[in-house]
Protein backbone atom coordinates (compact mmCIF):
# COMPACT_ATOMS: atom_id res chain seq x y z
CA UNK A 1 0.00 0.00 0.00
CA UNK A 2 1.52 3.35 -1.03
CA UNK A 3 1.36 6.01 1.65
CA UNK A 4 -0.98 8.93 1.17
CA UNK A 5 0.18 12.55 1.35
CA UNK A 6 -1.16 14.66 4.18
CA UNK A 7 -4.37 16.68 4.08
CA UNK A 8 -2.68 19.90 2.90
CA UNK A 9 -0.72 18.20 0.11
CA UNK A 10 -3.79 16.14 -0.82
CA UNK A 11 -5.97 19.26 -1.08
CA UNK A 12 -3.33 21.06 -3.19
CA UNK A 13 -3.03 18.01 -5.44
CA UNK A 14 -6.80 17.71 -5.87
CA UNK A 15 -7.08 21.42 -6.78
CA UNK A 16 -4.24 20.99 -9.30
CA UNK A 17 -5.94 17.88 -10.75
CA UNK A 18 -9.21 19.81 -11.09
CA UNK A 19 -7.34 22.61 -12.90
CA UNK A 20 -5.91 20.08 -15.34
CA UNK A 21 -9.37 18.61 -15.92
CA UNK A 22 -10.73 22.12 -16.58
CA UNK A 23 -7.91 22.59 -19.10
CA UNK A 24 -9.09 19.43 -20.86
CA UNK A 25 -12.62 20.82 -20.62
CA UNK A 26 -11.51 23.95 -22.52
CA UNK A 27 -9.95 21.71 -25.12
CA UNK A 28 -13.20 19.80 -25.68
CA UNK A 29 -15.56 22.74 -25.44
CA UNK A 30 -16.84 23.86 -28.84
CA UNK A 31 -18.29 27.26 -27.84
CA UNK A 32 -15.99 30.07 -26.81
CA UNK A 33 -18.31 31.44 -24.10
CA UNK A 34 -18.14 28.05 -22.36
CA UNK A 35 -14.36 28.14 -22.67
CA UNK A 36 -14.36 31.54 -20.97
CA UNK A 37 -16.51 30.10 -18.14
CA UNK A 38 -14.10 27.21 -17.70
CA UNK A 39 -11.18 29.65 -17.67
CA UNK A 40 -12.89 31.64 -14.92
CA UNK A 41 -13.44 28.42 -12.95
CA UNK A 42 -9.81 27.43 -13.40
CA UNK A 43 -8.67 30.85 -12.21
CA UNK A 44 -10.97 30.54 -9.19
CA UNK A 45 -9.17 27.27 -8.37
CA UNK A 46 -5.84 29.14 -8.32
CA UNK A 47 -7.25 31.64 -5.83
CA UNK A 48 -8.58 28.80 -3.66
CA UNK A 49 -5.19 27.10 -3.78
CA UNK A 50 -3.52 30.37 -2.73
CA UNK A 51 -5.89 30.56 0.25
CA UNK A 52 -5.16 26.91 1.19
CA UNK A 53 -1.41 27.52 1.05
CA UNK A 54 -1.74 30.80 2.94
CA UNK A 55 -3.69 29.05 5.70
CA UNK A 56 -1.33 26.09 5.88
CA UNK A 57 1.97 27.95 5.85
CA UNK A 58 0.82 31.11 7.55
CA UNK A 59 1.64 33.48 4.67
CA UNK A 60 -0.82 36.39 4.95
CA UNK A 61 0.33 38.07 1.73
CA UNK A 62 -1.02 35.10 -0.22
CA UNK A 63 -4.55 36.11 0.85
CA UNK A 64 -3.96 39.44 -0.88
CA UNK A 65 -2.65 37.61 -3.93
CA UNK A 66 -5.72 35.32 -3.94
CA UNK A 67 -8.02 38.36 -3.85
CA UNK A 68 -6.08 40.21 -6.54
CA UNK A 69 -5.81 37.16 -8.77
CA UNK A 70 -9.52 36.40 -8.27
CA UNK A 71 -10.59 39.95 -9.13
CA UNK A 72 -8.44 39.96 -12.22
CA UNK A 73 -8.77 36.44 -13.62
CA UNK A 74 -12.20 35.37 -12.41
CA UNK A 75 -13.98 38.69 -13.04
CA UNK A 76 -12.05 41.17 -15.19
CA UNK A 77 -10.42 38.99 -17.87
CA UNK A 78 -13.56 36.91 -18.62
CA UNK A 79 -15.56 40.16 -18.76
CA UNK A 80 -13.11 41.75 -21.21
CA UNK A 81 -13.05 38.56 -23.30
CA UNK A 82 -16.83 38.49 -23.52
CA UNK A 83 -16.88 42.17 -24.53
CA UNK A 84 -14.21 41.55 -27.16
CA UNK A 85 -16.07 38.63 -28.64
CA UNK A 86 -18.95 40.93 -29.42
CA UNK A 87 -22.22 41.91 -27.87
CA UNK A 88 -24.47 40.21 -27.12
CA UNK A 89 -22.07 37.70 -25.63
CA UNK A 90 -24.64 34.94 -25.80
CA UNK A 91 -24.45 34.86 -29.60
CA UNK A 92 -21.63 32.82 -31.00
CA UNK A 93 -19.09 34.65 -33.13
CA UNK A 94 -18.56 33.14 -36.59
CA UNK A 95 -15.44 31.04 -37.02
CA UNK A 96 -15.18 29.90 -33.42
CA UNK A 97 -17.60 27.02 -32.91
CA UNK A 98 -16.08 23.73 -33.92
CA UNK A 99 -12.77 25.17 -35.11
CA UNK A 100 -11.06 21.86 -34.36
CA UNK A 101 -8.24 20.54 -36.50
CA UNK A 102 -8.70 17.18 -34.76
CA UNK A 103 -12.03 15.78 -33.61
CA UNK A 104 -12.55 16.27 -29.85
CA UNK A 105 -12.04 12.60 -28.88
CA UNK A 106 -8.75 12.39 -30.83
CA UNK A 107 -7.63 15.74 -29.40
CA UNK A 108 -8.26 14.44 -25.88
CA UNK A 109 -6.34 11.23 -26.58
CA UNK A 110 -3.42 13.20 -28.08
CA UNK A 111 -3.41 15.51 -25.06
CA UNK A 112 -3.38 12.53 -22.68
CA UNK A 113 -0.06 11.56 -24.30
CA UNK A 114 1.18 15.16 -23.97
CA UNK A 115 0.06 15.27 -20.34
CA UNK A 116 2.01 12.06 -19.71
CA UNK A 117 5.06 13.74 -21.26
CA UNK A 118 4.53 16.77 -18.99
CA UNK A 119 4.24 14.51 -15.94
CA UNK A 120 7.38 12.67 -16.96
CA UNK A 121 9.40 15.85 -17.65
CA UNK A 122 8.50 17.62 -14.40
CA UNK A 123 8.78 14.38 -12.44
CA UNK A 124 12.28 13.67 -13.73
CA UNK A 125 13.47 17.19 -12.84
CA UNK A 126 13.35 15.99 -9.26
CA UNK A 127 12.43 19.37 -7.83
CA UNK A 128 11.48 19.08 -4.19
CA UNK A 129 11.04 22.23 -2.17
CA UNK A 130 10.35 21.97 1.55
CA UNK A 131 6.63 21.27 1.70
CA UNK A 132 5.75 21.58 -1.98
CA UNK A 133 3.50 18.76 -3.14
CA UNK A 134 5.49 17.20 -6.00
CA UNK A 135 2.35 15.91 -7.70
CA UNK A 136 0.84 19.40 -8.02
CA UNK A 137 4.02 20.48 -9.79
CA UNK A 138 3.78 17.57 -12.24
CA UNK A 139 0.13 18.44 -12.84
CA UNK A 140 1.20 22.03 -13.61
CA UNK A 141 3.68 20.59 -16.14
CA UNK A 142 0.94 18.55 -17.78
CA UNK A 143 -1.26 21.68 -17.87
CA UNK A 144 1.43 23.64 -19.70
CA UNK A 145 1.53 21.04 -22.49
CA UNK A 146 -2.24 20.74 -22.74
CA UNK A 147 -2.55 24.55 -22.92
CA UNK A 148 -0.05 24.57 -25.79
CA UNK A 149 -2.05 21.82 -27.50
CA UNK A 150 -5.24 23.87 -27.06
CA UNK A 151 -3.61 26.75 -28.94
CA UNK A 152 -2.48 24.36 -31.68
CA UNK A 153 -5.62 22.29 -32.28
CA UNK A 154 -8.05 25.22 -32.38
CA UNK A 155 -8.14 27.48 -35.42
CA UNK A 156 -9.70 30.56 -33.89
CA UNK A 157 -8.10 33.54 -32.22
CA UNK A 158 -10.40 33.45 -29.21
CA UNK A 159 -9.58 29.85 -28.23
CA UNK A 160 -5.90 30.52 -28.79
CA UNK A 161 -6.08 33.53 -26.47
CA UNK A 162 -7.81 31.41 -23.82
CA UNK A 163 -5.13 28.75 -24.27
CA UNK A 164 -2.49 31.40 -23.65
CA UNK A 165 -4.23 32.74 -20.55
CA UNK A 166 -4.64 29.25 -19.11
CA UNK A 167 -0.95 28.70 -19.76
CA UNK A 168 -0.38 31.59 -17.38
CA UNK A 169 -2.62 29.78 -14.86
CA UNK A 170 -0.41 26.70 -15.17
CA UNK A 171 2.69 28.77 -14.48
CA UNK A 172 0.98 30.47 -11.52
CA UNK A 173 0.16 27.02 -10.16
CA UNK A 174 3.77 25.91 -10.51
CA UNK A 175 5.07 29.06 -8.80
CA UNK A 176 2.53 28.74 -5.98
CA UNK A 177 3.42 25.16 -5.10
CA UNK A 178 7.13 25.58 -5.64
CA UNK A 179 7.82 29.04 -4.25
CA UNK A 180 4.85 30.15 -2.20
CA UNK A 181 7.04 32.64 -0.37
CA UNK A 182 7.80 34.55 -3.54
CA UNK A 183 7.53 38.29 -2.80
CA UNK A 184 4.09 39.69 -3.49
CA UNK A 185 5.64 42.26 -5.81
CA UNK A 186 6.88 39.54 -8.18
CA UNK A 187 3.55 37.72 -8.14
CA UNK A 188 1.83 41.00 -8.98
CA UNK A 189 4.27 41.49 -11.84
CA UNK A 190 3.15 38.13 -13.27
CA UNK A 191 -0.44 39.32 -13.09
CA UNK A 192 0.59 42.53 -14.85
CA UNK A 193 2.07 40.36 -17.62
CA UNK A 194 -1.31 38.74 -17.98
CA UNK A 195 -2.94 42.16 -18.32
CA UNK A 196 -0.54 43.01 -21.12
CA UNK A 197 -1.33 39.70 -22.82
CA UNK A 198 -5.05 40.48 -22.59
CA UNK A 199 -4.51 43.87 -24.21
CA UNK A 200 -2.31 42.43 -26.98
CA UNK A 201 -4.69 39.55 -27.70
CA UNK A 202 -7.60 41.98 -27.57
CA UNK A 203 -5.98 44.14 -30.23
CA UNK A 204 -5.18 41.07 -32.35
CA UNK A 205 -8.73 39.75 -32.08
CA UNK A 206 -10.15 43.17 -33.04
CA UNK A 207 -7.74 43.64 -35.94
CA UNK A 208 -8.29 40.16 -37.30
CA UNK A 209 -12.04 40.40 -36.96
CA UNK A 210 -12.23 43.77 -38.72
CA UNK A 211 -10.15 42.43 -41.63
CA UNK A 212 -11.49 38.93 -42.06
CA UNK A 213 -15.03 39.23 -40.60
CA UNK A 214 -14.21 36.02 -38.77
CA UNK A 215 -12.14 34.87 -35.84
CA UNK A 216 -10.84 31.83 -37.67
CA UNK A 217 -7.14 31.71 -38.45
CA UNK A 218 -7.65 29.02 -41.10
CA UNK A 219 -7.33 31.57 -43.92
CA UNK A 220 -4.09 33.06 -42.63
CA UNK A 221 -1.91 30.92 -44.83
CA UNK A 222 0.33 33.59 -46.37
CA UNK A 223 2.61 36.20 -44.89
CA UNK A 224 1.70 39.74 -45.99
CA UNK A 225 3.09 43.20 -45.23
Amino acid at each position, binding site marked *: *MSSAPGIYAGTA*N*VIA*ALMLLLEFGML*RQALVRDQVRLYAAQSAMISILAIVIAADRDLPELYALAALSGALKVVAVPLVLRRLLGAPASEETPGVAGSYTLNPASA*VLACIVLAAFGFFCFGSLGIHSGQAP*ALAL*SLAGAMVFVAFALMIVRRDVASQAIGFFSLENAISLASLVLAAELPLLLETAFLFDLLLAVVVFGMLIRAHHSRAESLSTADLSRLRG
Partner: protein
Amino acid sequence: MSAAVPIPVIQLLQVLTVALGAPGLMGVIAKIEARLQGRRGTRVLQPYYDLAKLCRKEALAPSGASWFFLAAPFVAVAAYLTIPLLIPVLTTYGLPLGYMGDILGGGFLLSLASFVVATAALETGSPYAQLGSSRAKTFSAITEPVVLFVVFTVALLTGTDLPYALAATVRSSAGQVIRPAHLLASAALFMVILHETGRIPVETHTGTNEFGMIEEARSFEHSGPYFALLKWGSMLKQFILFTILADVFLAPWGLASTQRLGAVLLAIVALLAKAVAIGVAVAVIDDSFAKLRLFKITEYVSAAFLLAVLGVFTLYLGGG
Protein backbone atom coordinates in the same frame (compact mmCIF):
# COMPACT_ATOMS: atom_id res chain seq x y z
CA MET B 1 -25.32 -7.19 23.20
CA SER B 2 -26.59 -8.99 20.13
CA ALA B 3 -25.77 -12.53 19.10
CA ALA B 4 -23.01 -13.39 16.64
CA VAL B 5 -24.12 -14.40 13.17
CA PRO B 6 -22.30 -17.41 11.65
CA ILE B 7 -19.99 -16.49 8.76
CA PRO B 8 -21.83 -18.64 6.14
CA VAL B 9 -25.08 -16.86 7.06
CA ILE B 10 -23.42 -13.43 6.55
CA GLN B 11 -22.14 -14.66 3.20
CA LEU B 12 -25.68 -15.69 2.26
CA LEU B 13 -27.06 -12.37 3.55
CA GLN B 14 -24.69 -10.52 1.17
CA VAL B 15 -26.27 -12.31 -1.78
CA LEU B 16 -29.83 -11.96 -0.44
CA THR B 17 -29.41 -8.21 0.19
CA VAL B 18 -28.38 -7.67 -3.41
CA ALA B 19 -30.95 -10.11 -4.80
CA LEU B 20 -33.91 -8.65 -2.91
CA GLY B 21 -32.76 -5.02 -2.77
CA ALA B 22 -32.12 -4.63 -6.50
CA PRO B 23 -35.77 -4.38 -7.69
CA GLY B 24 -36.55 -1.99 -4.82
CA LEU B 25 -33.66 0.28 -5.85
CA MET B 26 -34.96 0.28 -9.42
CA GLY B 27 -38.40 1.25 -8.07
CA VAL B 28 -36.96 4.11 -6.00
CA ILE B 29 -34.99 5.49 -8.97
CA ALA B 30 -38.06 5.24 -11.23
CA LYS B 31 -40.12 7.09 -8.61
CA ILE B 32 -37.53 9.88 -8.27
CA GLU B 33 -37.24 10.21 -12.03
CA ALA B 34 -41.01 10.48 -12.35
CA ARG B 35 -41.12 13.19 -9.68
CA LEU B 36 -38.34 15.11 -11.41
CA GLN B 37 -40.34 14.97 -14.63
CA GLY B 38 -43.51 16.18 -12.87
CA ARG B 39 -45.25 12.79 -12.92
CA ARG B 40 -46.57 10.79 -9.98
CA GLY B 41 -44.81 7.66 -11.13
CA THR B 42 -45.43 4.05 -10.18
CA ARG B 43 -45.18 2.49 -6.74
CA VAL B 44 -41.69 1.85 -5.39
CA LEU B 45 -42.61 -1.85 -5.17
CA GLN B 46 -43.75 -1.98 -8.81
CA PRO B 47 -40.63 -3.85 -10.08
CA TYR B 48 -41.43 -6.70 -7.63
CA TYR B 49 -44.99 -6.91 -8.95
CA ASP B 50 -43.71 -6.81 -12.54
CA LEU B 51 -41.30 -9.67 -11.90
CA ALA B 52 -44.02 -11.71 -10.15
CA LYS B 53 -46.42 -11.09 -13.03
CA LEU B 54 -43.85 -12.11 -15.64
CA CYS B 55 -43.09 -15.30 -13.70
CA ARG B 56 -46.73 -16.33 -14.02
CA LYS B 57 -46.83 -15.73 -17.78
CA GLU B 58 -46.35 -18.29 -20.51
CA ALA B 59 -42.83 -18.54 -21.98
CA LEU B 60 -42.35 -18.72 -25.73
CA ALA B 61 -39.14 -19.13 -27.73
CA PRO B 62 -38.59 -18.23 -31.39
CA SER B 63 -38.51 -21.22 -33.71
CA GLY B 64 -34.95 -22.34 -34.34
CA ALA B 65 -33.59 -21.01 -31.07
CA SER B 66 -31.50 -23.61 -29.25
CA TRP B 67 -31.22 -24.53 -25.56
CA PHE B 68 -28.73 -21.69 -25.16
CA PHE B 69 -31.53 -19.14 -25.64
CA LEU B 70 -33.35 -20.58 -22.63
CA ALA B 71 -30.23 -21.19 -20.52
CA ALA B 72 -28.78 -17.67 -20.95
CA PRO B 73 -31.01 -15.87 -18.41
CA PHE B 74 -30.16 -18.46 -15.74
CA VAL B 75 -26.42 -18.22 -16.44
CA ALA B 76 -26.59 -14.41 -16.36
CA VAL B 77 -28.42 -14.29 -13.01
CA ALA B 78 -26.10 -16.94 -11.56
CA ALA B 79 -23.08 -14.83 -12.61
CA TYR B 80 -24.60 -11.68 -11.08
CA LEU B 81 -25.41 -13.49 -7.83
CA THR B 82 -21.83 -14.77 -7.54
CA ILE B 83 -20.34 -11.25 -7.56
CA PRO B 84 -21.72 -10.27 -4.10
CA LEU B 85 -19.60 -13.11 -2.70
CA LEU B 86 -16.45 -11.38 -3.96
CA ILE B 87 -17.02 -7.76 -2.94
CA PRO B 88 -17.52 -6.10 0.44
CA VAL B 89 -21.31 -5.84 0.59
CA LEU B 90 -21.86 -6.01 4.35
CA THR B 91 -18.54 -6.63 6.08
CA THR B 92 -15.17 -4.92 6.36
CA TYR B 93 -13.44 -8.30 6.81
CA GLY B 94 -13.10 -10.76 3.93
CA LEU B 95 -15.53 -13.66 4.03
CA PRO B 96 -14.22 -17.16 3.15
CA LEU B 97 -15.46 -17.02 -0.46
CA GLY B 98 -14.43 -13.37 -0.79
CA TYR B 99 -10.93 -14.27 -1.95
CA MET B 100 -11.86 -16.67 -4.73
CA GLY B 101 -11.78 -13.74 -7.15
CA ASP B 102 -10.40 -10.18 -7.31
CA ILE B 103 -11.83 -7.09 -9.07
CA LEU B 104 -10.91 -8.61 -12.42
CA GLY B 105 -12.77 -11.78 -11.42
CA GLY B 106 -15.87 -9.69 -10.74
CA GLY B 107 -15.34 -7.94 -14.09
CA PHE B 108 -15.14 -11.31 -15.85
CA LEU B 109 -18.41 -12.41 -14.27
CA LEU B 110 -20.13 -9.18 -15.37
CA SER B 111 -18.74 -9.71 -18.90
CA LEU B 112 -19.82 -13.37 -18.90
CA ALA B 113 -23.39 -12.41 -18.01
CA SER B 114 -23.43 -9.74 -20.72
CA PHE B 115 -21.90 -12.16 -23.25
CA VAL B 116 -24.45 -14.96 -22.72
CA VAL B 117 -27.38 -12.53 -22.96
CA ALA B 118 -25.94 -11.02 -26.16
CA THR B 119 -25.36 -14.48 -27.67
CA ALA B 120 -28.89 -15.56 -26.77
CA ALA B 121 -30.20 -12.41 -28.48
CA LEU B 122 -28.21 -13.32 -31.60
CA GLU B 123 -29.85 -16.76 -31.62
CA THR B 124 -33.31 -15.29 -32.06
CA GLY B 125 -32.78 -13.87 -35.55
CA SER B 126 -34.70 -10.73 -34.52
CA PRO B 127 -33.06 -7.62 -35.99
CA TYR B 128 -33.68 -5.45 -32.90
CA ALA B 129 -32.27 -8.01 -30.50
CA GLN B 130 -29.24 -8.48 -32.74
CA LEU B 131 -28.78 -4.72 -33.06
CA GLY B 132 -28.88 -4.43 -29.28
CA SER B 133 -26.25 -7.13 -28.74
CA SER B 134 -24.04 -5.76 -31.49
CA ARG B 135 -24.15 -2.27 -29.96
CA ALA B 136 -23.70 -3.58 -26.42
CA LYS B 137 -20.57 -5.51 -27.36
CA THR B 138 -19.10 -2.64 -29.42
CA PHE B 139 -19.56 -0.12 -26.64
CA SER B 140 -18.43 -2.46 -23.89
CA ALA B 141 -15.20 -2.89 -25.85
CA ILE B 142 -14.54 0.86 -25.65
CA THR B 143 -15.43 1.15 -21.97
CA GLU B 144 -13.22 -1.83 -21.11
CA PRO B 145 -9.95 0.21 -21.12
CA VAL B 146 -11.49 2.65 -18.62
CA VAL B 147 -12.33 -0.20 -16.25
CA LEU B 148 -8.84 -1.63 -16.69
CA PHE B 149 -7.22 1.70 -15.80
CA VAL B 150 -9.46 1.98 -12.74
CA VAL B 151 -8.21 -1.48 -11.72
CA PHE B 152 -4.61 -0.35 -12.32
CA THR B 153 -5.20 2.64 -10.04
CA VAL B 154 -6.56 0.34 -7.36
CA ALA B 155 -3.55 -1.94 -7.80
CA LEU B 156 -1.11 0.99 -7.50
CA LEU B 157 -2.90 2.34 -4.43
CA THR B 158 -3.12 -0.91 -2.52
CA GLY B 159 -0.52 -3.23 -4.03
CA THR B 160 -3.29 -5.75 -4.68
CA ASP B 161 -6.53 -5.78 -6.66
CA LEU B 162 -8.78 -7.14 -3.97
CA PRO B 163 -11.86 -4.98 -3.39
CA TYR B 164 -11.63 -5.53 0.40
CA ALA B 165 -8.08 -4.09 0.36
CA LEU B 166 -9.11 -0.88 -1.41
CA ALA B 167 -12.03 -0.35 0.94
CA ALA B 168 -9.64 -0.80 3.89
CA THR B 169 -7.15 1.63 2.30
CA VAL B 170 -9.82 4.30 1.82
CA ARG B 171 -10.94 3.88 5.43
CA SER B 172 -7.38 4.07 6.74
CA SER B 173 -6.93 7.86 6.58
CA ALA B 174 -8.45 11.11 5.34
CA GLY B 175 -5.37 11.54 3.13
CA GLN B 176 -6.38 8.46 1.16
CA VAL B 177 -9.87 9.83 0.59
CA ILE B 178 -8.75 13.13 -0.94
CA ARG B 179 -5.97 11.56 -2.95
CA PRO B 180 -6.36 12.67 -6.61
CA ALA B 181 -5.81 9.12 -7.93
CA HIS B 182 -8.62 7.77 -5.78
CA LEU B 183 -11.01 10.60 -6.69
CA LEU B 184 -10.20 10.39 -10.41
CA ALA B 185 -10.65 6.60 -10.49
CA SER B 186 -13.94 6.90 -8.59
CA ALA B 187 -15.20 9.55 -11.02
CA ALA B 188 -14.19 7.40 -14.01
CA LEU B 189 -15.96 4.38 -12.52
CA PHE B 190 -19.07 6.48 -11.89
CA MET B 191 -19.10 7.56 -15.55
CA VAL B 192 -18.77 3.92 -16.64
CA ILE B 193 -21.61 2.96 -14.31
CA LEU B 194 -23.82 5.68 -15.79
CA HIS B 195 -23.11 4.21 -19.21
CA GLU B 196 -23.42 0.56 -18.17
CA THR B 197 -26.77 1.08 -16.45
CA GLY B 198 -28.17 2.76 -19.55
CA ARG B 199 -28.53 6.30 -18.20
CA ILE B 200 -26.33 8.55 -20.30
CA PRO B 201 -24.98 9.41 -22.82
CA VAL B 202 -27.19 7.78 -25.46
CA GLU B 203 -29.47 5.20 -23.96
CA THR B 204 -32.96 5.57 -22.53
CA HIS B 205 -33.20 2.65 -20.15
CA THR B 206 -36.97 2.77 -19.88
CA GLY B 207 -37.72 3.85 -23.42
CA THR B 208 -39.19 1.83 -26.23
CA ASN B 209 -37.51 3.86 -28.95
CA GLU B 210 -35.32 1.36 -30.76
CA PHE B 211 -32.68 3.94 -31.67
CA GLY B 212 -31.96 4.70 -28.04
CA MET B 213 -31.89 1.11 -26.87
CA ILE B 214 -28.79 -0.92 -26.30
CA GLU B 215 -29.08 -3.28 -23.36
CA GLU B 216 -32.89 -3.29 -23.32
CA ALA B 217 -33.13 -4.38 -26.95
CA ARG B 218 -31.39 -7.68 -26.26
CA SER B 219 -34.28 -9.16 -24.32
CA PHE B 220 -36.93 -8.44 -26.99
CA GLU B 221 -37.57 -12.08 -27.81
CA HIS B 222 -37.60 -13.49 -24.30
CA SER B 223 -40.89 -13.88 -22.49
CA GLY B 224 -42.42 -15.09 -19.26
CA PRO B 225 -40.07 -16.21 -16.46
CA TYR B 226 -37.05 -15.97 -18.78
CA PHE B 227 -37.78 -12.31 -19.44
CA ALA B 228 -38.30 -11.82 -15.70
CA LEU B 229 -34.83 -13.28 -15.07
CA LEU B 230 -33.27 -10.94 -17.64
CA LYS B 231 -34.98 -7.92 -16.10
CA TRP B 232 -33.95 -9.03 -12.63
CA GLY B 233 -30.42 -9.54 -13.98
CA SER B 234 -30.18 -5.94 -15.18
CA MET B 235 -31.47 -4.74 -11.78
CA LEU B 236 -28.86 -6.92 -10.06
CA LYS B 237 -26.14 -5.48 -12.28
CA GLN B 238 -27.16 -1.95 -11.33
CA PHE B 239 -27.21 -2.75 -7.61
CA ILE B 240 -23.84 -4.53 -7.80
CA LEU B 241 -22.21 -1.62 -9.62
CA PHE B 242 -23.63 0.84 -7.07
CA THR B 243 -22.37 -1.41 -4.25
CA ILE B 244 -18.87 -1.47 -5.74
CA LEU B 245 -18.90 2.32 -6.10
CA ALA B 246 -20.19 2.89 -2.56
CA ASP B 247 -18.54 0.12 -0.53
CA VAL B 248 -15.19 -0.03 -2.32
CA PHE B 249 -14.56 3.47 -3.64
CA LEU B 250 -16.68 6.33 -2.30
CA ALA B 251 -18.02 5.46 1.13
CA PRO B 252 -16.76 2.17 2.60
CA TRP B 253 -18.17 3.18 5.98
CA GLY B 254 -21.09 1.64 7.82
CA LEU B 255 -19.97 -1.92 7.06
CA ALA B 256 -20.01 -4.51 9.83
CA SER B 257 -16.59 -5.03 11.40
CA THR B 258 -17.84 -7.80 13.69
CA GLN B 259 -20.20 -10.78 13.37
CA ARG B 260 -22.81 -9.24 15.68
CA LEU B 261 -26.37 -9.30 14.39
CA GLY B 262 -26.92 -5.60 15.10
CA ALA B 263 -23.83 -4.60 13.11
CA VAL B 264 -24.84 -6.79 10.15
CA LEU B 265 -28.39 -5.42 10.13
CA LEU B 266 -27.01 -1.88 10.35
CA ALA B 267 -24.72 -2.68 7.38
CA ILE B 268 -27.75 -3.81 5.34
CA VAL B 269 -29.58 -0.55 6.11
CA ALA B 270 -26.43 1.50 5.38
CA LEU B 271 -25.91 -0.25 2.04
CA LEU B 272 -29.51 0.35 0.98
CA ALA B 273 -29.23 4.02 2.01
CA LYS B 274 -25.97 4.45 0.07
CA ALA B 275 -27.44 2.75 -3.00
CA VAL B 276 -30.49 5.04 -2.83
CA ALA B 277 -28.22 8.09 -2.47
CA ILE B 278 -26.30 7.09 -5.59
CA GLY B 279 -29.63 6.34 -7.28
CA VAL B 280 -30.84 9.89 -6.53
CA ALA B 281 -27.64 11.33 -8.03
CA VAL B 282 -28.03 9.10 -11.08
CA ALA B 283 -31.68 10.06 -11.55
CA VAL B 284 -30.84 13.78 -11.33
CA ILE B 285 -28.00 13.39 -13.84
CA ASP B 286 -30.17 11.28 -16.12
CA ASP B 287 -32.86 13.96 -16.15
CA SER B 288 -30.51 16.94 -16.40
CA PHE B 289 -28.52 15.99 -19.49
CA ALA B 290 -29.77 15.65 -23.03
CA LYS B 291 -29.06 12.34 -24.73
CA LEU B 292 -26.25 12.39 -27.25
CA ARG B 293 -26.21 10.97 -30.75
CA LEU B 294 -25.08 7.36 -30.81
CA PHE B 295 -21.63 7.97 -32.23
CA LYS B 296 -20.93 10.77 -29.75
CA ILE B 297 -20.46 7.99 -27.22
CA THR B 298 -16.73 8.00 -27.97
CA GLU B 299 -16.49 11.55 -26.62
CA TYR B 300 -18.18 10.52 -23.39
CA VAL B 301 -16.00 7.46 -23.00
CA SER B 302 -12.86 9.45 -23.83
CA ALA B 303 -13.71 11.78 -20.93
CA ALA B 304 -14.01 8.78 -18.59
CA PHE B 305 -10.79 7.37 -20.03
CA LEU B 306 -9.07 10.71 -19.38
CA LEU B 307 -10.03 10.56 -15.70
CA ALA B 308 -8.87 6.95 -15.32
CA VAL B 309 -5.57 7.54 -17.13
CA LEU B 310 -4.83 10.70 -15.14
CA GLY B 311 -5.47 8.65 -12.00
CA VAL B 312 -2.73 6.23 -13.03
CA PHE B 313 -0.41 9.08 -14.11
CA THR B 314 -0.72 10.86 -10.77
CA LEU B 315 0.46 7.70 -9.03
CA TYR B 316 2.90 6.25 -11.50
CA LEU B 317 4.53 9.41 -12.91
CA GLY B 318 3.55 12.08 -10.38
CA GLY B 319 4.32 10.09 -7.24
CA GLY B 320 1.08 11.21 -5.56
